[in-house]
C-alpha cells in the first residue's frame, strides 16, 4: 500500500513481501497512467481517411503505419524535431544551470536577499502565462529576435519555471552545514563549492528537474506560436498543431504525430529516472 514506508529496504529483499507489494503497486500505477494513453497509440495505427470513430478500438481492424508516414511528410516532423532538439539541447542545460546557480546562491545569501527573491519568484509564478505573451513579444521584436529560436530558449533564464530554483534552494539548504564548512576551510569559492560539493550531492534533484525541464521545453506551444512565423523554424508542438487542424478523418495522422512527438520524451524520462535513485545515502545505495 501507498503508505508502506518503513525503512524496509535491505530486509525487504530477504523476505520479499514489502518489495513485492511495492511491485504490485508500481504495476497498478503503470497501468492506471498508461492505459488511457494506449488509446492514442491504437488510434494512430488506424488507416487515415476512414470515418472518425467515437473512440479507437483497442485493436484496430487493420493496424498499419500509414498515418506515421503521412504525419512525417504532412507535418514536416523531421525538420520540426531537429528544431525542437536544438531548443532542448541549449535550453535544458542552460535552464538547469540557471536554476541550480540561483538555488545555491539563495541557500547561501543572507535571509533578507533570499526572502526577497523567493517572494519575487512566487509573484512570478502567479502571473498567468497568457498575460505575458504580448509584452514579451514586443520585447523580442524590439531585439529583432522573433523568428529565431532565441525566444524559445529564453525561458531558460527564469529556469523554465521559478519553481525550480526554489526546489534547488531547498535541496542545497538540506545539505549538512559541515559539508559547507569543509569547503570554506578549503577556501573554495562559492562557484567551486557549488560545482564540487553541492551539485554532486543533489544529483537526484538535478535528474528530476532535468526531466521536468525537458518536458516543459519540448512541449512548449505558446511561445513558438507567438514568436515563430517561418515554417522552417517550427518546433514539434507547432507542427503538431497544424496536423491537429486536419479534418476528423485524418485523426490517425495527428495521433501518429503526437506519438512520435512523445517518444523522445519517453527516452529522456527513462534515462532521468534511473538517476533519481542514485543518491549517496545508504538508503539509495541499496
Amino acid at each position, binding site marked *: 500500500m501507498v503508505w508502506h514506508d518503513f525503512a524496509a529496504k535491505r530486509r525487504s529483499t530477504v523476505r520479499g513481501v514489502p518489495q513485492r507489494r511495492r511491485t504490485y503497486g508500481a504495476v497498478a500505477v503503470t497501468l492506471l497512467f498508461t492505459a488511457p494513453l494506449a488509446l492514442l497509440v491504437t488510434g494512430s495505427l488506424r488507416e487515415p481517411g476512414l470515418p472518425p470513430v467515437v473512440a479507437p478500438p483497442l485493436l484496430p481492424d487493420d493496424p498499419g503505419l500509414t498515418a506515421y508516414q503521412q504525419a512525417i511528410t504532412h507535418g514536416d516532423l523531421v525538420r520540426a524535431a531537429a528544431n525542437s532538439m536544438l531548443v532542448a539541447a541549449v535550453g535544458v542545460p542552460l535552464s538547469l544551470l540557471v536554476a541550480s546557480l540561483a538555488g545555491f546562491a539563495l541557500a547561501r545569501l543572507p535571509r533578507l536577499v533570499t526572502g526577497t527573491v523567493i517572494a519575487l519568484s512566487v509573484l512570478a509564478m502567479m502571473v498567468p502565462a497568457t498575460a505575458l505573451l504580448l509584452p514579451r513579444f514586443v520585447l523580442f521584436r524590439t531585439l529583432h529576435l522573433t523568428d529565431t529560436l532565441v525566444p524559445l530558449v529564453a525561458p531558460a533564464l527564469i529556469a523554465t519555471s521559478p519553481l525550480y530554483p526554489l526546489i534547488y534552494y531547498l535541496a542545497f539548504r538540506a545539505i*549538512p552545514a*559541515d*559539508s559547507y*564548512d*569543509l569547503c*570554506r*576551510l*578549503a*577556501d*573554495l569559492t562559492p562557484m*567551486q563549492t557549488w560545482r*564540487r*560539493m553541492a551539485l*554532486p*550531492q543533489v*544529483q537526484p534533484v538535478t535528474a528530476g528537474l532535468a526531466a521536468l525541464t525537458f518536458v516543459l521545453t519540448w512541449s512548449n506551444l505558446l511561445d513558438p506560436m507567438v514568436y515563430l512565423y517561418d515554417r522552417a523554424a517550427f518546433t514539434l508542438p507547432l507542427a503538431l498543431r497544424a496536423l491537429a487542424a486536419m479534418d476528423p478523418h485524418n485523426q490517425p495522422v495527428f495521433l501518429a504525430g503526437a506519438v512520435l512527438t512523445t517518444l523522445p520524451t519517453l527516452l529522456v524520462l527513462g534515462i532521468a529516472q534511473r538517476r533519481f535513485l542514485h543518491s*549517496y*545515502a*545508504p538508503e539509495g*545505495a541499496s
Partner: protein
Amino acid sequence: MTAGLRLRGVSLSRGAVTALRGIDLAVPRGELLVVLGPSGAGKSSLLRAIAGLDPVTAGTVAIGGRDVTAQRPGQRNVSMVFQNHSLLPHLTVADNIAFGDRIRGAGHRAAAARAAQAAATVGCQDLLARRPHQLSGGERQRVALARALVREPDVFLLDEPLANLDAELRLRMRTEIRAVHDRLGTTTVYVTHDQSEAMALGDRIAVLRDGRFEQVGTPDEVWRQPRTRHVAAFVGAPGMNLLPGDGPLTLPGGPATGVELGVRPEHVTLGGTPPDPLGEVERVEVLGEDALVHLTVGGHPLLARVPAAARPAPGDRVGIGVAAEHLHVFDTATGERVPQPTAAGRAG
C-alpha cells in the same frame, strides 16, 4: 611554515547561548595544546572560532602574528577535523582525502598518491574506493583525520579525532599525530576527552569550562597543581575526590572550614589503622591490574584506586589513609586552590 596562535578576548554567542566568554589564549608556534573540558563547555566552538567558521562576537584571532579575525576560513590556512568526522558523501575515501589538494590545483596523480599515503598512515589503505556510508564509525573518523593530515597548514585543529577508535589504534594514531606534529612543527589545538591522551600528547593542557579557561598549564601542573576544584575534579579518570575541610579527612592542622580537601583516588590507601577514618566499601570495579573502590566515609562518597590484588570486598570496613602531601586544598567560596606549605605527615 607554521605560526603561533593568539586569541584576545574572544567571545562567541549563538542566539541566546553563549559558547565562549572572553577567551585569551596564546599558543606559541609549534606547540600542541590539548583542550579538555566538560561536554558543552565550548571546545568545539573554540576551534570553530579559530578556524573562522563561526564569526566571533567579540575579540580577535591572530595566526602567526597576523590578525585573521576578518578573514575567511579559507584564508587562515588551518586544517580541521570535525567532531562528527564529516566526509563528503558523494566522494570516495580517496577523493575525500584528496579534496583539498585537488582544489589547490594539485594534479590528479600527485593528489591520489598523497591521499593513498595518508590513508595508509591511518590504516585505511584498503578502503580508498569506498564511499563514506560504507565505512564503520572508526573508519570514517580515521579518513577524516587523514584528510586533515595531508595538508601542511599553519594550525591544526583536531576535535576529538580519536574518540571512536579502540585503545590500540588510538595509541598508534596518537603517536602518528605527534610524529606529524613534530615533523612539521605545526601549531596544534587538540580537543579530547581522553585523559591519558591529553597527558601523553599535550605540551600544555587548557581546561575549558562554561566558555572560560579554568587553567592552562603543562600536564604536570594541571595534574599536580589544579588551579580550581573544577580542574581537580575534572582531570583524571576518575578525577579527584573532594571532601569538606571539616569532614572525615583533615589537614595536619586539624579541621578547617571554608575549604574543600581534594585527593586523587590513586593516593587513597586502604587498610590503614586508627586514627585513620573508617570507610565502608560500596562497590568494587576491577579494571585489569587496578581496582576502583567506591567507599562511603562519614557520609561522603570516596573513590580509591588500588591494585586489583589488594582490593577489599563490598561491605568491608577499611581504614582510609592519605598522605598529607597528596592533599589539595580549595576555597569553597571561590573554588580556587589554596597554596599549602609542603608539609609532611598523615592526614587523619
